[in-house]
């Protein structure tokens, strides 16, 4: 079709000949229009106001681009449509723009404002696509705009937009490398992102922009390891490759000790590993010092190193070959020798994939087999060659088979080789012969067998086979020529038949080299060769000269004339190499008066003993390139390749990977912990938090007691103990503020040694928790707690947080010293308290009944602030009575267990940023349900969950209630988790209505108006509506709104200092205020009624997304 012509006019510019466009309406193509007016029809269509015409035009244009035709002259017409409403037209315009913007920079600028607007759109898809296109336009002038957009998007609420931002970073970098420093800042920020969606993309950006800044990874290392399994497959590849490099700089060589052992007992390698030995020696020399170090101190793997190995291993089961390869190379480069074996099976599996995949995998396997032969030996047969394999695959498999050959399997391999030699694919046969040669040199026992086999091949009909055999035999003979003069004789005869130059040259060289072994034949061969000299190829000619020279030196009587004849012929050869050689040899061997001392040594020069060649794999030493990389495949450094560093001799400080921010570690570490074992939520929480907090406190790691409980929580609770006991639960809940104040002074003396005021906020949490549990129980058997504590300890050490612990132990030196004795006792007590949590399904203050005292107390608080309590009362009380329940798990799916949840609208005790979700369990089945708990919480970035305490037993027919907290990050993303019973796991998810993402906030009408004034413009959303008939009185409206959203009514008229209630206005305006839970952004809602039930709804909120959604919800509530 047109493709060939398209090929010719590629990028021909607008001056190129106007060709008819294929696939176009012939009437509209270039046939009837001149070059000048080319594409006029398209321009017309683009200018029309019908979307369908525009779309058609854009489709044609994109088809042109796809075929590589030039459509750049349409730029002005196309770019006009960048703001088109039709989404497909828009997308196609983007495609066009990205393709041609570079060529038409000025015109491209016209479109920028559209994208800038798009960046502010409430729809995350539009924001993302705007950023994507904006960053893809390669126009230098907009670099600052791009930079700004990327920075903004990097802190966007939507992880998808953040992902796009990560993608945009390398684009900007390639456009303007000057921006590197600023971009690194963005990368640093995005690296801290917790979502799997972003992780892969940002590491990609990191690799392209600043791969040398390995220090940026420290803090994120553990998170990346833990997220890895959930990252999309392409991201996994990039992350694994990067972490390989990282690990090489941070951890010690796990094989140090093994190479030490080999030194002593490497006898088994002697035979066949001639090439390996040297290589290992080098290694040993290099690492001699490290080894001696290791001798003194046994190697202990860094827990982070172990973490990486453990978390990547499951990915060997990925369907994506690239992921499997990435893990394989990671294991090859990082794992202790004993563990590398696991990758063999997975790599062998890849051999079933497409031939391109096979090609790459075999190349890597070939490299691996040189270093780690044993690994693939069990899979020898998987490398057997089929006649249908492409030649390049055959040759690679042959390479692997050769590398795998040893004394035990050589006979099977040689039998295989025999079948290969008969193949019709001659290149493959030649490679097989070479492989046989290599086996013969490597394995002494079979050398004679191989040689005999090869000699038999000399009578093969195919000349190529014979030639290749000759070349290989020549190399083998060089090893022990004296034994094989008959083979040399046999080969001498072959000169009559073989025409392949390389083979002829090889035979001649052999005869010359070992002319003493065949004294009679050699001169005769020279005679024949002299006759055909002029017709020979260059390499053969050179060897004829060599042969002549050697014979002249050993047997000058017979060959003197022949030699001179040959040298004379060579003197006039066309090739200067040959002429030079002839001149050189003549001077050397023919004694003249002019010739110097050198000719005396001619014999020594020519007949010196030559070392046997070493036949080695072309894959030897390739592993200095990172396996699986392009550079490895090409055996040449590709652009942008990052060298795989050598292991450090002493491990750098591992504490750099400790993470300070407790909130985040909590999520990830808990998830990890969960995988291993169902943990008591309380304990794990306080543990994670306090540990992480401490690590920030001090770096002193000198003292390490035997005690490992969390010091802070203990000391805190100790001082509070007496008070607490007397305090009732209710009081404790009633007002957090007051209690905190009470705590502070008490805690002070204990914490004095730590000068950390700032960390108090975090410290307080675990404290409170342990306190709660403490107050819950006083009686618990010692023995039980003992086992518990030891268990938790062992767990911790696995958790790769031991460093944290050590610090923690060291930090509060004074109190620790004082309280060492007490500690033991207290620790046990603490543990026992925790145990009790599991016994009682709903003991903790977290579990609150729906209409508790709390809401009342809140109301009273608010009352204290407000003057007009009459207006307030219905507003705040109403929601709690009208709580809407959502189904979490249906009775049938839950096999008798039904679970509902509702948003209790109580502030969540342990964390003010969380929305309290009340979960109501009903056991409808006939059997008891045990150990109800949550597991496997999957969250979007930034979201956090405080799990409800495990409900140990839910008898048949009973119900139970628990409260959990979720920080939705002011978004309506779902929190997914598994609800587990002792027998089953159910996947459930909680999605909040937007109205539950806020909490009431009291303000006066004046304040309201003031705040509203500041939230105008984009932050204001207004809708007109007709109120439902039933919903036109004050009470109904207030109730509907407060049910839809957790807001408080702003008392009307309170600004008027009213002593008497003012007369109700004809069309009253209702105002509601709240703040979002996480970010405390104001949410202001106004319902202004008008006549005939018409009303206007206004929402002001700086979170535009929340605002938009809220408008919809309230609208729905008021109109139905």
């Amino acid at each position: 079709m047109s493709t060939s012509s398209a090929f010719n006019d590629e990028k021909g510019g607008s001056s190129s000949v106007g060709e008819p466009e294929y696939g176009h309406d012939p009437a509209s193509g270039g046939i009837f229009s001149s070059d000048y007016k080319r594409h006029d029809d398209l321009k017309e269509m683009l200018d029309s106001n019908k979307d369908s015409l525009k779309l058609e035009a854009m489709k044609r244009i994109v088809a042109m681009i796809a075929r590589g035709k030039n459509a750049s002259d349409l730029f002005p017409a196309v770019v006009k449509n960048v703001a088109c409403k039709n989404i497909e037209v828009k997308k196609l315009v983007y495609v066009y723009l990205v393709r041609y913007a570079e060529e038409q920079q000025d015109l491209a600028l016209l479109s920028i404002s559209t994208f800038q607007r798009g960046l502010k759109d409430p729809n995350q898809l539009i924001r993302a696509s705007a950023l994507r296109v904006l960053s893809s336009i390669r126009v230098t002038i907009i670099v600052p705009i791009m930079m700004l957009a990327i920075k903004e998007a990097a802190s966007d609420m939507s992880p998808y937009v953040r992902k796009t931002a990560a993608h945009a970073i390398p684009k900007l970098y390639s456009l303007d490398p000057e921006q590197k420093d600023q971009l690194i800042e963005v990368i640093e920020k995005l690296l801290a992102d917790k979502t799997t969606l972003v992780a892969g993309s940002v590491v990609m950006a990191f690799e392209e922009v600043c791969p040398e800044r390995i220090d940026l990874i420290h803090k994120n290392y553990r998170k990346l390891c833990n997220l890895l399994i959930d990252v999309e497959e392409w991201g996994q590849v990039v992350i694994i490759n990067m972490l390989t490099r990282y690990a090489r700089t941070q951890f010690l060589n796990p094989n140090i000790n093994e190479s030490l052992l080999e030194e002593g007992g490497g006898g088994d390698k002697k035979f066949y590993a001639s090439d390996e030995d040297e290589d290992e020696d080098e290694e040993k020399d290099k690492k001699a010092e490290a080894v001696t170090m290791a001798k003194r101190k046994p190697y202990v793997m860094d827990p982070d190193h172990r973490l990486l190995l453990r978390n990547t291993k499951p990915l060997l089961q990925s369907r994506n070959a690239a992921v499997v390869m990435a893990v394989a190379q990671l294991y090859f480069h990082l794992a202790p020798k004993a563990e590398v074996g696991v990758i063999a099976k997975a790599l062998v599996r890849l051999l079933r994939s497409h031939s391109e995949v096979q090609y790459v995998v075999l190349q890597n396997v070939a490299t691996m087999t040189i270093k780690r032969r044993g690994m693939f030996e069990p899979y020898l047969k998987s490398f057997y060659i089929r006649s249908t394999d492409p030649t390049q695959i055959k040759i690679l498999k042959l390479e692997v088979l050769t590398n795998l050959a040893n004394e035990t399997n050589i006979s099977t391999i040689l039998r295989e080789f025999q079948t290969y030699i008969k193949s019709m694919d001659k290149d493959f046969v030649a490679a097989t012969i070479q492989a046989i040669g290599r086996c013969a040199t490597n394995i002494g026992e079979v050398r004679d067998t191989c040689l005999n086999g090869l000699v038999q091949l000399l009578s093969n009909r195919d000349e190529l086979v014979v030639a290749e055999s000759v070349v290989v035999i020549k190399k083998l003979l060089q090893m022990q020529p004296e034994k094989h003069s008959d083979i040399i004789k046999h080969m001498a005869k072959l000169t009559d038949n073989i025409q392949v130059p390389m083979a002829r040259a090889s035979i001649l060289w052999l005869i010359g080299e070992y002319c003493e072994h065949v004294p009679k034949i050699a001169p005769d061969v020279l005679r024949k060769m002299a006759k055909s000299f002029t017709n020979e190829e260059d390499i053969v000619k050179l060897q004829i000269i060599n042969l002549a020279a050697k014979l002249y030196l050993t047997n000058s009587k017979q060959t003197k004339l022949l030699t001179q004849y040959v040298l004379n012929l060579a003197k006039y050869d066309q090739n200067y190499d040959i002429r030079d050689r002839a001149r050189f040899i003549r001077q050397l061997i023919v004694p003249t008066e002019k010739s110097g001392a050198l000719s005396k040594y001619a014999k020594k020069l020519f007949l010196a003993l030559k070392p046997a060649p070493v036949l080695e794999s072309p894959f030897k030493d390739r592993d200095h390139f990172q396996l699986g990389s392009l550079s490895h495949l090409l055996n040449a450094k590709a652009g942008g390749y990052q060298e795989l560093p050598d292991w450090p001799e002493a491990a750098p400080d591992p504490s750099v990977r400790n993470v300070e921010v407790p909130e985040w570690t909590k999520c990830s570490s808990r998830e990890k912990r969960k995988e291993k074992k169902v943990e008591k939520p309380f304990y794990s929480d306080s543990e994670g938090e306090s540990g992480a907090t401490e690590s920030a406190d001090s770096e002193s790691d000198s003292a390490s007691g035997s005690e490992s409980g969390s010091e802070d929580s203990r000391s805190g609770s100790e001082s509070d103990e007496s008070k607490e006991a007397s305090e009732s639960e209710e009081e404790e809940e009633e007002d957090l503020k007051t209690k905190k104040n009470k705590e502070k002074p008490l805690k002070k003396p204990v914490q004095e040694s730590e000068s950390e005021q700032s960390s108090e906020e975090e410290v307080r949490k675990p404290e409170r928790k342990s306190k709660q549990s403490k107050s819950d129980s006083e009686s618990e058997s010692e023995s039980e707690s003992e086992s518990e504590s030891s268990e938790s300890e062992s767990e911790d050490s696995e958790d790769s947080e031991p460093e944290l612990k050590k610090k923690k132990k060291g930090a509060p030196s004074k109190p620790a010293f004082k309280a060492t004795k007490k500690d033991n006792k207290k620790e046990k007590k603490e543990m026992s308290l925790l145990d009790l949590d599991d016994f009682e399904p709903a003991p903790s203050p977290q579990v609150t009944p729906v209409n508790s005292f709390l809401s009342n107390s809140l109301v009273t608080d608010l009352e204290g602030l407000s003057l007009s309590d009459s207006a307030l009362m219905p507003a705040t009380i109403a929601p709690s009575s009208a709580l809407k329940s959502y189904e979490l798990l249906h009775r049938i799916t839950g096999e008798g267990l039904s679970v509902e949840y509702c948003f209790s609208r109580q502030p969540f005790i342990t964390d003010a940023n969380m929305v309290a979700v009340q979960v109501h369990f009903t056991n409808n089945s006939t059997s008891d349900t045990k150990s109800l708990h949550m597991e496997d919480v999957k969250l979007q970035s930034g979201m956090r969950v405080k799990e409800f305490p495990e409900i140990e037993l839910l008898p048949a027919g009973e119900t139970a209630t628990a409260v959990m907290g979720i920080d939705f990050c002011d978004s309506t993303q779902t929190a997914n988790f598994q609800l587990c019973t002792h027998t089953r796991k159910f996947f459930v998810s909680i999605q909040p209505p937007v109205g539950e993402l806020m909490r009431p906030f009291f303000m006066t009408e004046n304040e309201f108006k003031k705040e509203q004034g500041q939230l105008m413009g984009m932050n204001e959303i207004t809708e007109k509506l007709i109120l439902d008939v039933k919903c036109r009185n004050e009470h109904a409206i207030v109730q509907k709104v407060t049910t839809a959203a957790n807001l408080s009514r702003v008392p009307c008229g309170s600004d008027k200092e009213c002593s008497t209630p003012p007369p109700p206005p004809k069309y009253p305006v209702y105002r509601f205020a709240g703040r979002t839970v996480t970010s405390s952004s104001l949410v202001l809602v106004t319902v202004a009624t008008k006549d005939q039930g018409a009303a206007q709804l206004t929402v002001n909120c700086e979170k535009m997304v929340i605002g938009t959604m809220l408008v919809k919800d309230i609208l729905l509530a008021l109109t139905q």
Partner: protein
Amino acid sequence: MIDSLFLINHSGDIFLEKHWKSVISRSVCDYFFEAKEKAVDPENVAPVLQTPHHYLISIYRDKIFFLSAIQTEVPPLFVIEFLHRVGDTFLDYFGECSETVIKDNVVIVYELLEEMLDNGFPLATESNVLKEMIKPPNILRSVVNTLTGGSNVGNTLPTGQLSNVPWRRAGVKYTNNEAYFDVIEEIDAILDKSGTTVFAEIQGVIEACVRLTGMPDLTLSFMNPRLLDDVSFHPCVRFKRWESERVLSFIPPDGNFTLMSYQVSSQNLVAIPVYVKQNISFLEAGSCGRLDITIGPKQTMGKTVEGLMVTVHMPKAVLTVNLTATQGTHTYDLATKVLVWDIGKLNPQKLPNLRGSLSMQPGAPKPEENPSLNIDLKIQQLAISGLKVSRLDMYGEKYKPFKGVKYLTKAGKFQVRT
């Protein structure tokens, strides 16, 4: 990463190009054409080529070369795997992956490529996600679109993209809820002249077709999971459940997908369903040869062997064949020298036989090697390894789905050396 993609047909025409970074001139493909000229077979073109300024990584599938140009270091498998994924997506969208179909749907193809890569780094490759953004063509929609100017492009963010199950879109609805699983096993074997097994293994895949409403959570368990040695999974499968309980627990993608592939552990002896008696000889003088092949059932577990086919790549010197078959038909392609004997169902009472003479090019030397036979066969309702699905449970949804499991055994690379 991937800078540009060129689609090249069998005869070497570039019929589509797409650039994700700066435009790379088509002339870069010349290096590839050079390599293609050298290689006899398209399969023999090296997948990775180095040119002065670029690296070319290509795959060959369905008679199309997918050639990507790359400027910097990138894991080659990454690119190869991605290119295959592109091919898979085309197959998924258009039912086939051919030059014609790509040319016919060039706009959709372009939109797809645009979504799949951003700046050369894969963005959305899950078919479920892509289908939400760009709807696959069908006749009805294209008619409606032409009339109304409607579009193929979705305007919401694919739900999968943001969820924890990126492979599944939200809000799937079916009136008939069904889940089918095909357990397909392939026997890869090399038999030598005497019929002894040189090498044999069983590779299996479980292809699933799941059309279920909502967010079902499925658990598939086997009677004998210990048979499975090496496995690889679709990302939806929970690896931990597999590790601990040997069951496949997953939230399935919507539609067709490969759930897992596996290899049967090598301790188990592989049952070879057929035996082949063959005698191919070339006479030294007289420039002719004889061929005699008989196939009989060996270990078929009581099932019938169907779709039996023998393919022989004859030596170049064989000009024509003069054969008679007791069953089935045989053809000999003079150009490629491939003899195909299509037998069909294997009747144990009357074994199929193909015999006759081969006429050779006069004067040509006797071929060194006898050609090996490639056997193709199918056995319905049998997994040759003995793998059995025990049950499929669904959680998370309330309806009762229709479930089905099918077994099939095929010959993979089944070769008999002669």
